[in-house]
Each structure stands twice: as structure tokens, then as C-alpha cells.
């Protein structure tokens, strides 16, 4: 795991560091000088053990939470390195890299695509992240990169609902494409993956062996006339 740059422009980082430094000045003083436990000492300890550490924890929590969303964080385990490198490649035509070039995704592109957007999405995403750490420490830490690239896979198929956080299936522009209109119900039920071969292609082609991919999309019926009649002139 490589070391990552600190987000220097984050006010909460400064708050965390200042609170920690202030508490770290009070606590050793009490430990070494052993002043009598009078009212003033108790007040100092309220700051050293309560107010300042709570401030430090607040800053560190938010900073830590933000750090876990960055691509550098995901790519700091060697097995995710090629994914991160591909996302940073301005010439890459993979789905992941194309999305990473969008300002909305930017350096948080791993998280934006792989986050759980359900009711307890943030908690579920973080719990999933802990599983990744556990698997990395127990299985993949010493694994050869070439082997890991093909062995690591998602625990369940990528959900189209994640794509739909940005790409609505109701826009006339989306429905204007015959394959979209005819496959809409299959897309909504995840029967067809947006990122499958024959559609938009896999997001991380470097992990696939030649000929390896998700199953071919199901044969779709011709676009219903009702869908086509709903199309407007918007793009």
C-alpha cells in the first residue's frame, strides 16, 4: 500500500490537527507534572480528554470518509493499481477511463460507479470496503498482479441502477436508440448489463482474458411503437 497525499485544503484537516496538538500538550503535562486534582485541573482535563479529542475525531472522521472515496485510496492496494492507472490514462477508451474524465466523477470515479445507492447505501458501501480489505489481507496481498487481475471479480453482477444514477432511461434521447428502447425492461431488471459486450463494453477490459466477458445480451425484441412515439426532439 503506497502513501497518499494529504488533502491540504481541507479545513477539517486543520481542525483535527490543531485539536490533536492542543490535547497532546495538555495530557502529557498532566501525566508528567501530576498536579493536584483541583477545579482548574479538572477543567483542563475536560478539554484534553473531551472537547479537543471530539474536535479531532470530527475532523479525522470526515477527512477519512472523504479519503476512502478517492481513486488513489482504491488504487493503493497493488491489485487495484492497473484499474487506477487505466482511469488516469487520457488515451484509454475503457468505460472506466471515459467516466473518470468527466468532472462529475473525477478522482472519485471508483466510488461513484461502485457505491451502493440504496437506503443504507453509504453504510453498505463501507461494509463492502471492509470486506475488500479483509480479502486483500487474507488472499490477494501476495498474489501476482497478472493472476489477481483475472481472479478478482465483483461479488454480484454490476447493477445497471448505478449507471442510471446519471443516465436516465426515460429521456427521449436514450429511448431514440432502438436497442435501448427494445431492451428497456431487460435493462431495468439487470437481465442485460449496460457494460456488457455488444452494448457499451466492459468497464475494465484489462481484467478480461481474450474471449472472456459477461454473457451476450439477450436477444431483444424490436422497439415498441409506444416508446418511439414518446420521443421528442431533445437530444
Amino acid at each position, binding site marked *: 500500500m503506497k502513501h497518499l497525499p494529504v488533502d491540504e485544503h481541507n479545513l477539517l*484537516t486543520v481542525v483535527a490537527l490543531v485539536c490533536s496538538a492542543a490535547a497532546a500538550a495538555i495530557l502529557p503535562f498532566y*501525566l508528567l507534572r501530576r498536579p493536584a*486534582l483541583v477545579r482548574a485541573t479538572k477543567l483542563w482535563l475536560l478539554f484534553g*480528554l473531551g472537547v479537543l479529542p471530539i474536535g479531532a475525531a470530527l475532523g479525522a472522521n470526515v477527512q477519512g470518509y472523504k479519503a476512502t472515496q478517492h481513486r488513489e485510496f482504491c488504487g*493503493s492496494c497493488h491489485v487495484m493499481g492497473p484499474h487506477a492507472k487505466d482511469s488516469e490514462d487520457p488515451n484509454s477508451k475503457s468505460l472506466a477511463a471515459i467516466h473518470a474524465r468527466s468532472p462529475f466523477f473525477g478522482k472519485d470515479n471508483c466510488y461513484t460507479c461502485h457505491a451502493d445507492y440504496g437506503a443504507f447505501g453509504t453504510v453498505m458501501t463501507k461494509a463492502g470496503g471492509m470486506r475488500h480489505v479483509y480479502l486483500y489481507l487474507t488472499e490477494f496481498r501476495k498474489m501476482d498482479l497478472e493472476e489477481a487481475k483475472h481472479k478478482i471479480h465483483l461479488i454480484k453482477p454490476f447493477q445497471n441502477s448505478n449507471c442510471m444514477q446519471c443516465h436516465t432511461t426515460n429521456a427521449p434521447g436514450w429511448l431514440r436508440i432502438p436497442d435501448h428502447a427494445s431492451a428497456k425492461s431487460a435493462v431495468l431488471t439487470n437481465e442485460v448489463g449496460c457494460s456488457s459486450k455488444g452494448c457499451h463494453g466492459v468497464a475494465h477490459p484489462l481484467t478480461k482474458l481474450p474471449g472472456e466477458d459477461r454473457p451476450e445480451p439477450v436477444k431483444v425484441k424490436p422497439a415498441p411503437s409506444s416508446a418511439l412515439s414518446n420521443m421528442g426532439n431533445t437530444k
Partner: protein
Amino acid sequence: MRPLTRAEKVLRIACVCALVGLALMVWSVLDPSPMPVILGLSVGQGVGTLSFLLFLVVVAMDLKVKQQIAAGDSQDPSP
């Protein structure tokens, strides 16, 4: 060096716990990679919370002693 009271011993443990928790939290801020962040947000927070709880225990002990003294004073028949 005078002997430590029970409250002072608890407070010293609280101070050490707080310093360990703060060190882990600062590490996670300065090096936001997986291990420091996980340790800072779990062990760091846990140890820090424990230290504050120990402080509150001492406060509660202190209040109890003061109540006992006050009760003793009110029952004292001497002028």
C-alpha cells in the same frame, strides 16, 4: 512523590488512552491510506471514546463524594 488516589489513577489511564487515540487519528489524517484510515476510524475512535468515558466516571465519583460530604455536614450536630 505523593501516592495517587483512585481517581488520579483512572485519569492517568484516560490520558494514555486519549494520546493513543489521537495518535491514530492524526496518522489517518496525515497518511490517508487504507490501514491508517481503518485504524484511526475504529481503534482510534474506540480508545478516544473510552478515555472520555473514564473521565466521566471520575466526574461521577467526584460528585458522589461531594454529595456524601454534604450529607455528612447536614447531619453534623456541632455548631
